[in-house]
C-alpha cells in the first residue's frame, strides 16, 4: 500500500516536473529562436552595418528622454496615490493608471500627434519621447504605489515618532527603502520603451527604412525595423533582421540589468 502510493507519488512528481520544464522551454524557445534566427538572417543578407549603431544610439536617446518624461510623472502620481490622496481619489487615479497601462501604445502616438505635435512640428524627437513617456508613466505610477504600500508600517511610524514631517518621511525614509526596486522597474520600463515602435508611428516623422540615407528626424531601431521589414528589397530586410538582433540583445540586457538592480537589497 505504502509502496504503491509511494511510486505513484514519485510518478506524479516526475510528470509535473517535466511539464514545468516543458512549459519553460516553450517560453524560452521563441526568444532564443528569434535571437538566433535574426542573427542568421542578418548575416546571410549582409544586414549589419555601421548605420545600425546610429539607430541604436537614436533609440537610446529617445528612450532616455522618454524616461525623463515618464518616470518623474509616474513617480509623483504613485506617491500621491500611496501617501496623500483620500481613498476615493486614490481609487480613481489607480483605475485611470490601469486603463492607461492597458491601452494600445499606438494611442499615445495618436494623442501626441494630434495635440503637442501640431505645435512642435510632426517629426521630432520631443513628441516621440513624449508619446513613449505617456506609455511609461502609468506603469511607473502603479509600481511606485505598490512598492510604497509594501513599506512596513513600523518603519513609517519609527520615522514619524522621531518628529519628522510626513513629507520627509516619504522622501527620506519610504522612498529610499524601495529605491533598488524602483530602479529595477525603471530599467525594465526603459527596456520596454526601447522596443516599442507603435507610439512612434505618428510622431517620428516620415517612416523610413534603415537603409534610408537620412535616418529621419528621430532614428529608432524599432521603427526602422518595422519600415525595413515591410520593404521588398532583400538588402533592406537584412538590415531589419540585424536591427531585430541588436534590439533583442539590448532589451534582454536592459531587462537583466533591471532585474539585478531590483533584486539587490539596499
Amino acid at each position, binding site marked *: 500500500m505504502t509502496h504503491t502510493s509511494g511510486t505513484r507519488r514519485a510518478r506524479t512528481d516526475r510528470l509535473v516536473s517535466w511539464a514545468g520544464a516543458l512549459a519553460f522551454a516553450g517560453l524560452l524557445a521563441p526568444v532564443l529562436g528569434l535571437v538566433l534566427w535574426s542573427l542568421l538572417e542578418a548575416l546571410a543578407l549582409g544586414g549589419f552595418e555601421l548605420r545600425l549603431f546610429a539607430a541604436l544610439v537614436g533609440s537610446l536617446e529617445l528612450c532616455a528622454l522618454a524616461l525623463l518624461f515618464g518616470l518623474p510623472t509616474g513617480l509623483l502620481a504613485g506617491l500621491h496615490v500611496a501617501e496623500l490622496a483620500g481613498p476615493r481619489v486614490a481609487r480613481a487615479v489607480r483605475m485611470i493608471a490601469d486603463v492607461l497601462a492597458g491601452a494600445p501604445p499606438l494611442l499615445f502616438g495618436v494623442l501626441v500627434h494630434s495635440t503637442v505635435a501640431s505645435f512642435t512640428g510632426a517629426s521630432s524627437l520631443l513628441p516621440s519621447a513624449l508619446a513613449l513617456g505617456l506609455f511609461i508613466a502609468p506603469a511607473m505610477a502603479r509600481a511606485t504605489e505598490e512598492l510604497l504600500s509594501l513599506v512596513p508600517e513600523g518603519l513609517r511610524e519609527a520615522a514619524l515618532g522621531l518628529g*519628522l514631517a510626513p513629507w520627509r518621511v516619504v522622501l527620506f525614509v519610504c522612498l529610499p527603502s524601495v529605491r533598488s526596486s524602483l530602479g529595477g522597474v525603471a530599467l525594465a520600463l526603459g527596456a520596454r520603451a526601447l522596443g516599442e515602435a507603435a507610439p512612434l508611428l505618428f510622431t517620428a516623422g516620415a517612416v523610413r527604412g534603415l537603409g534610408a540615407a537620412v535616418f529621419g528626424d528621430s532614428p529608432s531601431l524599432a521603427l526602422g525595423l518595422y519600415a525595413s521589414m515591410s520593404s521588398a528589397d532583400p538588402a533592406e530586410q537584412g538590415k531589419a533582421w540585424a536591427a531585430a538582433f541588436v534590439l533583442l540583445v539590448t532589451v534582454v540586457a536592459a531587462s537583466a540589468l533591471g532585474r539585478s538592480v531590483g533584486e539587490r537589497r539596499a
Partner: protein
Amino acid sequence: MSASARAKVVVEDLRAWFAAPGRPASEATSALSGVSMRFAENEVTALIGPSGSGKSTLLRCINRMHEVTRGAGVGGSVRLDGVDVYGAKVDPVEVRRRIGLVFQRPNPLPMLSVRENVLAGFRLAGEPVPQAEELVESMLRRVALWDEVKDRLDRPGTSLSGGQQQRLCIARCLALRPEVMLMDEPCSALDPVATARIEELLNELRSKITIVVVTHNLQQAARVADSTAFLHQGELIEHEPTSVVFTNPRDPRTENYITGRFGRTTGS
C-alpha cells in the same frame, strides 16, 4: 505618583477610537473612554492591563502618534507643561520631538548605519548636528551600547542583535533630548539579559526624564516604576504608587489582574 511631584503630562477625559475607512465616527470602535490622569515629572509611570485595554493607545495619544493610523480619532485633552498638544496652533511634529516614542519592536532605520541611526532625528529633518561624533558616543554610552558597537558604527543598524537594536532605538530617541519618553512594551521582543539592560537604563534615566512605559510584565512594572496605572477596557481603573498597586490595590479588578485570576473567577 508621589504627591510632591509636578505633573509633566496631564491627560483629561481622553477618548480615542478607530473608525473603518469611510465610515462615520459614530460607528467607530472605542479604544479609550474618558481617561484622566497625571504623569509626574522625572518619574517612571507604568501602564499595565490586559491586551486591548487601551495602554498603547493612551501612549500614542500622548505624542499624537494615534492620529497617524487611518481612521483613528481622538477627543479630550493632553497637556504638556500646561499646553494642550491637540491645540489648534500646535504642530504634531514638534510634539513628537518633545515626547519621544520607543516601539515594541526594535525598528532601526534599515538603510542607515548605527551612527546615522543615532543621528537620524536630526539628519533626516535636515538639521545640522554640531559635534555629531561626541553625541553618538555619549548616547551610545548612555544606553550601554558603546563598547559593543564602537567598532562597527558604519555597519547597518539592522545588523545588530534584537536587544542591541532596541537600545539603539532608545539612543536615537534620547539624542533628540525629549522631555518625555514613551515606551511601548520595549522589552517584549527581548530575552531576559537584554531586558535587564533596558531596566538598568530606565533606573538610570529616572529622575532625569519623564518616562511612561507600557508593559505586560508585572515584575518589570514593580521593579522600574514609581507609579503604576491599571487600565481595563479603555478605562483607567486606578493609578497609585507602584507599591500600593501591587500590595494593596483599591479595585478588585486590579487585584484580580495582578494576582493572575483575571477572567477566571470574577471576569471583567
